[in-house]
Structures are given as structure tokens and as C-alpha cells.
């Protein structure tokens, strides 16, 4: 497998936050880690990204053990929940920042930056400063900045949680098509069931630091391993388009309908 997490464990003092976490993911797929608040999702991502050292366990990317490599040298980038954009740089400067450490010529970097900005639909904002663009646009800058260095793995920590509902749905679609287009391997963390179901090629349900079930989303939906998982998903019906993409989710309790592509 392209990404392999084996027996990851992390505790803060007495408290075990991630316990014996084992997952694997083929290249080019998107893994969604779905779990309630405080279950250890960010902690897991921080271990993959290198910002936290696991107490035990291994992380392999493309066959290479990266467990002991510092974040700046991992072939992994992160889109942070708060974006972490550089407020003193323009949009373009933000996006090309990572290329600086890849010995790429300035003109070339600029060209590539503009291409990625085009890709996320922000070509017109290259010269704007971060505080001059909207939340959704900032989100895209963060995404472009993480993807431009062509990492082997891209991590996203609840990237849409600061956006309003409509924008969230739109960004979801854009992310999915971008991921397919680039063939990027991604780990996406969320506590939104619907988001997970729509985005994921594979889905891990996490609770109190453990993975309860790990499979294709539809499979989990049809065969929840425990009443807890079934209840957590809380969905009644899914509607599918002819091409197999998920179209609509109908929730069990509220009759609200959500459209998705």
C-alpha cells in the first residue's frame, strides 16, 4: 500500500489519545477519517505530518519509513484547519513558498504558481494580500500551496469547517475533482458524516482514539460493524446517479435533502 499506518499510539500524560491505529491506503485514493470532536483526528494527522512523534508504531509512505523524519523533510503537506497562510505575502507568494526549497528557478516557480492558482480558480487574485480575499478563497490558496510541491500525500484537517454550508458543498466538489485530476493521495479529516460519505474512497470511523471500522463508505453504510457506527452515520437513504456518483443523502431524523455531485 502507498500509505501505511501501523499500530500508531499516542498519549498525553495519563490520557491515551490514539490507540493502536492501523490503516492503509492505495495511491491516488482519498481516505476520510470521520469521528466526533476530541476523538484524536488532529492528533493522528499531526503524527502523519510529523508535528507530533508517536509513542510507538510506524508510518510508511511509498514504502519509506518516515516516522522519524522531521516535517520539513517529509513528502507530506497539510492544509491546516486555520489555513496558516502568511499574512505578509501575496496570494502568489504564499502558493510558491514551498517551491523555494526545491531549487526551482524563480520564473519557473511563478509560472507553476499561476497554473495552480488557475486550477483553484484564483488566477485573478495572484497579487492580493491574504486579508483582502474571502474565507473560501483563502481555503483555496491553502490547498494550492499544499499541492504545488507535489507531495506524495496531502493531509486536510477539517478544511471546510470555517466555511458556510453552501460554500462547503461547492468546495467539496472542487476538491474531489482536483484530487481525481491530480491522482493525489489524500487523508481528509472531518466530523461531518455527509462530507465523509461524498468525498471518501475509503472511510475510517474513529472513536476515542480507536478505529471502529475501515472500509469503502458504501460498505460501511450497508454493513455497520456496531450499533454505534450505524447510529453515528445516522443516514436513511442514499440516492445514486447513473455514473455511480453519490447524488443525494436523506437523513433519518430530518427530512432535509442535500445535493451533491
Amino acid at each position, binding site marked *: 500500500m502507498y500509505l501505511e499506518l501501523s499500530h500508531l499510539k499516542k498519549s498525553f500524560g495519563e490520557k491515551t489519545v490514539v490507540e493502536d491505529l492501523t490503516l492503509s491506503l492505495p495511491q491516488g485514493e482519498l481516505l476520510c477519517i470521520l469521528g466526533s470532536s476530541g476523538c484524536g483526528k488532529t492528533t493522528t494527522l499531526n503524527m502523519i505530518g*510529523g508535528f507530533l512523534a508517536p509513542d510507538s508504531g510506524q508510518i510508511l509512505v511509498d514504502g519509506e519509513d518516515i516516522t522519524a523524519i522531521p516535517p520539513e523533510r517529509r513528502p507530506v503537506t497539510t492544509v491546516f484547519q*486555520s489555513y496558516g497562510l502568511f*499574512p505578509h505575502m501575496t496570494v502568489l507568494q504564499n502558493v510558491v513558498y514551498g517551491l523555494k526549497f526545491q531549487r526551482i528557478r524563480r520564473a519557473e516557480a511563478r509560472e507553476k504558481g499561476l497554473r495552480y492558482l488557475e486550477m483553484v480558480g484564483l488566477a485573478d487574485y495572484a497579487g492580493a494580500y491574504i486579508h483582502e480575499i474571502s474565507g473560501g478563497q483563502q481555503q483555496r490558496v491553502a490547498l494550492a500551496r499544499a499541492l504545488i510541491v507535489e507531495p506524495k500525500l496531502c493531509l486536510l484537517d477539517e478544511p471546510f469547517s470555517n466555511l458556510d454550508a453552501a460554500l462547503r458543498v461547492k468546495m467539496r466538489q472542487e476538491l474531489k475533482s482536483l484530487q481525481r485530476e491530480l491522482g493525489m493521495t489524500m487523508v481528509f479529516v472531518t466530523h461531518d458524516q455527509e462530507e465523509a460519505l461524498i468525498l471518501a474512497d475509503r472511510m475510517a470511523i474513529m472513536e476515542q482514539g480507536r478505529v471502529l471500522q475501515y472500509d469503502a463508505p458504501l460498505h460501511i453504510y450497508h454493513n455497520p460493524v456496531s450499533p454505534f457506527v450505524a447510529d453515528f452515520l445516522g443516514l436513511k437513504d442514499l440516492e445514486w446517479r447513473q455514473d455511480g456518483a453519490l447524488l443525494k443523502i436523506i437523513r433519518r431524523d430530518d427530512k432535509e435533502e442535500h445535493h451533491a455531485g
Partner: protein
Amino acid sequence: MNNRGHNTQERASLRDALFGVPHLSGGRRPGERKGGALTAGSLLDKAILLLLLGAVCLFVLWPMACILLRSLGDGEGGFTLAAYAQVWSRYRENLWNSVFVGVLSALACTVFSTAAAIFIATRRGWVKMACMALLLITMVSPPFVSSLAYIQLYGRRGWITYRLLGISWDPYNCWGVIWMQSISFVPLNTLLLIGILSKLDTGSLQAARDLGARPAAILRDVVLPLMGPGILVSLLLSFVRSLSDYGTPVIIGGRFSTIASEIYLQLVGYSDLEKSSAMNMFLLLPAIAAFFLYRYLMRRSDKLSEGSRSRQGRLELSLSRCGPVGIGIAAVSILFFLMMVLQYGCIFLAGFLKSTKGVYSFTLRNWEELWRLDAATMVRSVVYALIVSLAGTLFAMLFAYYMERRRVPGRSFFDCVATLPYMLPGTCFGIGYILAFNHEPLKLTGTAVIVLANMLFKQLPTATKICSASLTQVPLALERSARDLGGGQLAVLRDVILPSLRPAFLSCFVYNFSSSMTTAGAIIFLINPGKKLAVFKLFDAVYTGDYAVASLIASVIIVIVLAVEGLAYLITWKGGERNVS
């Protein structure tokens, strides 16, 4: 853009809160009031506001205007530029010296401050505690302490230069002045920069690392640029403080003199006031220019940290992995803190040592003498400081409330005037007060009032800032509900605003007290010789070379301020506890 939208919205809701509820007694704009009699409450409200604005104009603006008018006066009611021409021709060298010293001090000081701030922010545990404690002590130290220690350590009979190394040299020159100024401005700038560093977005740092930036690159590309406006502010503040500093050149400048030290000499001699005023204008104008630049830079800095997640712990940056720059930062900081330790060790010891033929022994003689001669001075200093702290804190709270929450006409103008003293050189503030208040109907020179007022208004900018910061934490809804339940403006002030400013009261009080005990600035020129204060005695003692007594006075001031601050914290802490139980 986001920000502007937010503000407009806030303004709208502010207006809504204050004027939008028609059935309230004091709730309408003055112009819109129809028929109904003015209630006593709203009259008092207006009276307070007028009093505050009037006081600010009288004690800040008017003295400045007096300097300008006097510098242009020809003594017979006409206007002339003669005084300026005279200053320009006679004191050009002093002006040049001032600029030279100012630039070098500002640069040196900013290098030290930036290094120390980054160093402290990346430490944790006892190293951080120790450094912060040292900064705290320097913040409550009277001025001249550095110069005093400098003379004792490196002077003609200095402990290090003469006794230890056996060299005899002349420390009284412009390099001594530059060195001492940069050292003594460091603590304040460092605290300012630590504040900016603590608002640095953790996300940006993590993201940089994530994208492949090594510590040195993070420092260069993220940390330093985000500190940029703060570093410029530090340069600016140090430059202006250096321009206005007369103490250091007078004490250790020897034959080297700046425009500020020249003004000092003129003023204590009470000579030509026209000339002194004109000389002061050379300080006042750059100070005012710097003030506006300062406000602009601080706004820029706020903008850079806007929307960032604040960091709880330390700055995650390994200085040892930052290459030569990181090592430089650590080295400069350690050097600075060692010098501070040496400086305070020297000050605390010097008062209790006597030297007989080069051999030192312990003595309490100076100590006893100090209390016999100067107990009254110490008590007076504390009393003055307490008065200023209480009055100043109340003033600042009310002022902050009217500025932040009420639509005072000309709000930004008054806000600006009240903040101006932050940058005003002590000599300007001193001569301004002498010119403004030495004749009827406002003859205050020689009284305690002029000293107290001077301290209060010099400290008003920072005090107001503390209160405003705290006031923005008070939700508008609270105010609104008090109005909604039938309370007038005054009731809101009494029942909502003042109680919720309690934490600010403490910081404000502590700030006012320590500043009143330790700033010499303008006070030196205003004090009645019969009613000296501790800082004045200190300056006298240093000036006349009585270093043992000077060290003692400095130590006593530091101990008193720390004790009063500790007591204030203890009282509010206990008080808070009682409230809870």
C-alpha cells in the same frame, strides 16, 4: 476589507445600542431631544465628558501650544524666528550629536530587543521565568540605573575596569551615552516584541515547516517579517526616547552634549525661555511626526496578526538549528541578560559597601543616613504615586469608556491628543507646563498639583490603552440590557462598565504607580526644591557622584514598587476569592 465590513456593522450596532431605543430617558442624541427635561443623570454625564475633554486639552494641548507661541515670541507681543536662528547657529553641533546618538542607540537597542524577544519566546521553564523576572525589575527601575551601574563597573574607579583589570580610562564620552541608552531602552521594546510574537499565528509557522522550511528559513521568511512593524516601532520609539533623554548625556556624556542635555542645563538655570522653547521645538516636531508614524505601524502590526490563532505555549523554533543567525540571537540575548544581572548585582550591593584603601567591607552607614535625611522624600514619593495611580486610573477608565463606547464629536482628535504624551520628550512636557501654568489664573508652578497632573497626563496614553483593551471584552449586550431595564447612561457606567473594568483597574493602577515612582522626565523641572521626590534625589546623587546613596535610593524604589505591586495583586486576588465563595 473584511475588517471594514465588520467595523461598520459594529458601529451600526453601537449606534443602535446607544440611540436606537426611543423610550429611554437619556438615550437620544442631544440634538434630537424633544421637549423632555434634562435629567440630573444625563446632565452629570455631559459634565463628566466635558471635564475629561477639557482637562486633556488644558494639560496636553495647551502646554504644547505655549512652547510654540513662546518660541516664536519676541518678548513684546510680536512674532519672530530669531530664537530659531539663534539655536540653529549656536547648537547645530548638539542637534547633530542628538541625531547621531539617536540613530545608533535605536539600531543597537533594536538588535538587542529583537534578539531578546525571540530568545525569550523560544524558551520555557526557569530560563524564561528568570529572563521575565529580570525584565520586570528593569521595568520598575528608576532611570539612570544603567548609567549608575556603568560608572561603578566601568568608570575611572570601576570595579571591573580599574579594580579587576587595572585599566584607567575615561568612560565619559558619546559611546558611553549610546551604549547606556541602548541598554536602558531594551526592556520596554522587548516586552512590546514579545507581545507581537505571542500573537504570531501558529498555523503560519507550522505551514512553513510543512512546506519544507528549515528553522533558519522560518525565522527569515515568517517570524522576522511578521515582527517587521514591531521592529520598526522599536526603532522609532528608541530614536525618540534617545532624542529626549537628557539624563544619560548629563551623567556620562562628559563634554559631549546633545540638544536634550543642553535644554536641561538651560532649564535648571531658568535662563532664556524663548531659546529653550525654540530648542524644544527641535525635539517636539520629530516626536510628533514619530507619533503618527507609530500609530500607523501599530495598526499594520495588528492587521498582520488579525485572525491568527493565539499560541498558548512557546514559539516552536529551535534557535540552535537556525544557523549563525540563531546562534547570534542566543549570544546577544545571553550577553544582555548577563549584563543586567551584573548591573543589578552592582546596584543592590553598592549601597552597603564601603571602601577603605581599595578594600571593601559591609556597612549600614549609608542606609541609616538615607533614612535619617530622606525618609520624608520617600514617603512623599509614595503618597504622590498613590494619588496619581488612583486619580489616573479613574480618569483613564472614564476616558476610555467615552472614547470607545460613545459617539463623542471629534473622537479621533481627542483620542490623538490624549495619546500624544506617550511620545513627548520630558523636557517639552516640563517646559510646556512651566510656560502654561506660571501665571494667574492658573498659577500652579511650585505646587504639588502641577507635578501630579504632569505624571497623570504623561501616563494617560498607556493607562487608557489598558482600559480600552479591557473594555472591548465587555459585551455590548450587557450595556444594552442595562439600558433596556431603564438605566440611564450614568447607571450603565456605574453598574456595568466600571465593575467589568476591575481587572483593568489593577493593571492600570500598577502601571501608574510604577511609572510615578520611576519616571524622571518632566518632573525634574517641576518639582519644588522644598518638596523633592525620590527620583529627583537619585538624579542629584548620581550627578554629584554620591554613588552609594544613589544605589540605595534606586534599590529602595525598586523594592517599594515591587512590594506595592505584590500587595495590589494580593488584595484583588483575595477580593476575587471572597466574591466567589
